[in-house]
């Protein structure tokens, strides 16, 4: 068994790409659930919004609107198209999505939002998969070819290895950008949660009627939180698509949302740094288990009959589900939190 490789995987899980993607998505979910009490089970849809916002603008639309013989001969440069794509992916799509999810449900009981967010996430995924709009969305194969502008900015040698040999050049660039974005996002989160705005969110989480009686427009605040949290999720999803150089519908199945949830609850919902702690630990555990099992199967420590290669991939989902259920039942305040402050168990 190659313990070194396993340790490396664990370390990479702790700080690597998945930590970045899911940390960002969990920062968003923390705003939704941790601070406002919104049961968003469609964070994967916000992630998809970020990925597809960029991909559709750069891959689908750019060649069409820049076509010398087409209807629009705009000739916008590749760099600008990327910027427009980022704008759509990070701002426009998440806002539209949040309105779609929020308008029917934010006036209703919390579990309606849970149902609708899951439903909307499925609607979007199935729609993206549909061959009917293949030219626009790439159907089940997804869209690619939108990440070049990003990697062109990388100062690192694409072939070289960086950071204790963990990442190759492009990956390292992505992870570095990711860390920066994470840091800024966490800072923004910290700032607004300590402001009167954050105070209103917490009040809504505790008791919406009390907040309304004191003159706070709960509906509007919940919508703002849904949008802002969705934007963080979209950034995470966009970086994920850039990391894969691919925006594909099946990368945004509902289970992705649940990974974000586990990360958040693990870290302790309602704390600013929880998403980062949770995402790091979650992916260290998941990837570590994964690497360990693969090594064990490869070295016949575990027999093939007991566990095949494809089944190893499923273990992580089982583990995630089990973690989610156990945490919610026994440590709703997260692994480090104390119950006084904020727990899943509040309502």
């Amino acid at each position, binding site marked *: 068994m190659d313990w070194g490789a396993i340790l490396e995987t664990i370390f990479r899980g702790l700080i690597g790409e998945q930590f970045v993607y899911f940390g960002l998505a969990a920062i968003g979910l923390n705003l939704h659930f941790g601070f406002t009490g919104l*049961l968003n*089970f469609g964070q994967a849809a916000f992630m998809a919004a970020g990925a597809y916002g960029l991909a559709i603008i750069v891959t689908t639309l750019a060649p069409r609107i820049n076509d010398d013989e087409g209807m629009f001969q705009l000739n916008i440069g590749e760099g600008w198209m990327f910027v427009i794509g980022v704008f759509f992916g990070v701002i426009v799509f998440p806002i539209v999505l949040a309105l*779609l999810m929020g*308008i*029917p*449900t934010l*006036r*209703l009981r*919390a*579990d*309606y939002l*849970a*149902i*609708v967010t*899951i*439903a*909307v996430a*499925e*609607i979007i995924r*199935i*729609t993206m*998969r*549909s*061959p*009917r709009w293949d030219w626009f969305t790439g159907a089940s194969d997804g869209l690619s070819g939108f990440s070049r502008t990003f990697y062109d900015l990388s100062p690192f040698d694409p072939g070289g290895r960086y950071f204790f040999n963990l990442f190759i050049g492009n990956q390292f660039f992505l992870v570095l950008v990711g860390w920066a974005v994470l840091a800024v996002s966490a800072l923004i989160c910290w700032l607004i949660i300590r402001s009167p705005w954050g105070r209103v969110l917490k009040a809504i989480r505790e008791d919406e*009627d009390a907040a309304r009686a004191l003159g706070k427009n709960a509906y509007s605040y919940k919508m703002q939180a849904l949008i802002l949290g969705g934007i963080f999720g979209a950034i995470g999803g966009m970086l994920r698509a850039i990391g894969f150089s691919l925006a594909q519908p099946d990368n945004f199945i*509902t*289970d992705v949302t*649940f990974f974000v*949830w*586990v990360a958040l*609850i693990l870290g302790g919902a309602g704390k600013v740094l929880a998403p980062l702690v949770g995402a790091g630990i979650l992916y260290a555990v998941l990837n570590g288990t994964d690497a360990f099992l693969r090594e064990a199967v490869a070295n016949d420590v575990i027999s093939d009959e007991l566990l095949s290669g494809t*089944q190893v991939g*499923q*273990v992580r*989902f*089982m583990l*995630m*589900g*089990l*973690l*989610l*259920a*156990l*945490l*919610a*039942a026994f440590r*709703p305040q997260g692994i480090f939190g104390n119950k006084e402050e904020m727990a*899943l*168990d*509040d*309502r």
Partner: protein
Amino acid sequence: MWLVLLIGVLASVLGLGASSPVAAQDDGDDGDDTAEAAESIGGQLRTRTAEGEDVFAEGVTMIVFDADGNEVGSAVSDAEGRWRVALPGPGVYDVQLDVATLPEEVPLRDEGRDRLEGIDVRAGAAQNTLFPLGEAIESSDNTIRFLQLTVDGIKLGLIIAMCSIGLSLIYGTTGLTNFAHGEMVTFGAITAFIVHVVYPGRIFGIPGTNSLVFAALVTIVLAGALGWALNEFVWKRLRNRGASLIAALVVSIGMAIFIRYIYLFQFEGRARFYRDYQIQEQWDLGIIRLAPKDLFIIAFSTTVLIGVGLALQKTRAGKAMRAVADNRDLAESSGIDVESVIKWVWIAGSALAATGGVLFGLTENINWEMGFRLLLLMFAGVTLGGLGTAYGALFGSLIVGIFIQLIAYPSWFPSDMKNVGALGMLVIILLVRPQGLLGRKERIG
């Protein structure tokens, strides 16, 4: 309206009964093949164009495996799509269709249904198999198509209803939005598959124990027991610890994922089918065409649902369930043993969901995530009808089922988007009538 239709259908079945046996789908297959070997598996690969012309799939490789997965033999279909493989003896066999050899103009109707498993060949039998090919034939007559879709929708709606009654009653009595309810549906389908296909054969030599009906009965009992156990060992304890509804909801999601991936782990990603009733020619009932099993599903689930409705209306237990779902505190103070009611809601709800799972597996296929797919439709149905009410769940589910089928009525509507239509409807309902069609507005404060 559909009841009238159903009666009409039943009547025509009785009328046609003698002349259309539950067909081995293959015609023109009389004897000369079977003379070569005592037992064989074969069939005819064909489909029909919209104009009614027969199209045969020639040159398709069919491979037969025995129960241990060893190849027994293979055959290539002839110009009329016929193929036959001689068998070493009676037993249980699998047939694999080599998709790569299929002509392009006749694809498999259900992608992934390229393998039939657990085909029981009795001594001396020339067993026939059916691989549905090509697009399902769609009638050019719009009225007939409309009727056909409506009947399909009723079937789907009845199945959703059966599954979602438990979901709604559990919500009504305990406040839990149980995201793991879909997994109970899958449990039903898979358990029945295991009893029926994986370990077939007569149990204790009792005739009939290798039938799907027997498997379904076993499944229902097991599901009821599982429902009881889940309530007793998970949900009751969480309630007693005073866990919040949100925490419970998240627990149910975690459990759902855990169980679902255990299914995948054990059952693999492929779609499977029951051995019984999978090869049935559709009966032409004059106006619409139905496989006998579909008719059975409609009749059976209607009976069950009417039974459930009567039980809720007339029996003491049923009244207690409705009372607790309506107002738990009031029910408790008027002497109803709420915990006992909740226990029975779990048992009955789980058994119904599992039954729905068997039926759903029978109409479509059995796979590890069928329950999750159905769960969203159940939510749509239950929300439409009014969360927490038994009749609402029934009514809403029927509408969702019919809606899903009928939304594909305009031919431009992409059939892979049918569920999107239903989920979109869910969002719109919440916008205009959040309490559901049968629900009441809640009072604040």
